């Protein structure tokens, strides 16, 4: 299945489509959507009420119209940085990936698409020179440390580092 990274807005109904899909996914597993991701989804919904250029909610939508992941993305100037910084927060994979036991490649595929396509926003929709992903828990730190070692070996990034609760990437620009 292929995916597109779509901006979610309350005004055009896309947020409602996302919510309806994840509600349905939760119910498939006998879970309640209103009890799901209670720290993140209200934040994302609030942001989806506004149509801003430098801050938005993006979701990975499959060609079957189901949503595989969602995240908050914004671009801003930050102290200590030369150029704008793209920050990616509240990354969530779908209830199907959460409650289900899918092949490992499905998890890697969705994660790689979320990460690569949000990074791509730094080149187009939200021009930025640096990208940071928010790692919200000690478990995040442990998991992403293992992935970090491989990312550092690639020529795509001039810098890859974990500091505090963030994974920092600076891309090699041609």
């Amino acid at each position, binding site marked *: 299945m292929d995916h597109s990274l779509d901006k979610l807005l309350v005004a055009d109904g896309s947020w409602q489509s996302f919510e309806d899909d994840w509600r349905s996914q939760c119910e498939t597993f006998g879970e309640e959507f209103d009890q799901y991701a*209670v*720290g993140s989804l209200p934040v994302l919904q609030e942001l989806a009420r506004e149509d801003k250029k430098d801050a938005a909610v993006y979701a990975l939508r499959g060609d079957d119209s189901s949503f595989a992941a969602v995240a908050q993305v914004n671009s801003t100037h930050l102290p200590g940085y030369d150029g704008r910084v793209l920050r990616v927060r509240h990354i*969530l994979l779908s209830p199907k990936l*959460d409650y289900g036991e899918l092949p490992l490649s499905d998890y*890697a595929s969705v994660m*790689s698409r979320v990460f690569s396509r949000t990074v791509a926003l730094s080149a187009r929709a939200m021009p930025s020179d640096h990208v940071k992903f928010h790692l*919200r828990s000690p478990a*995040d730190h442990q998991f992403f440390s293992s992935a970090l070692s491989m990312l550092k070996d690639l020529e795509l990034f001039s810098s890859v580092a974990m500091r505090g609760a963030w994974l920092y990437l600076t891309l090699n620009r041609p």
Partner: protein
Amino acid sequence: MNVKKLEAAFFAAFSHAIRTQGLSALKRTSLFGSNESATELKKAA
């Protein structure tokens, strides 16, 4: 920016992390909303 190349790089990195640490390690991360359900947040408090 070559997004396909970037995607392939992330795929390799995340596949490696999942293979070496196991799916259970990934499922303990904040990427999964069930880890921030009202019940889980209450347990943690």
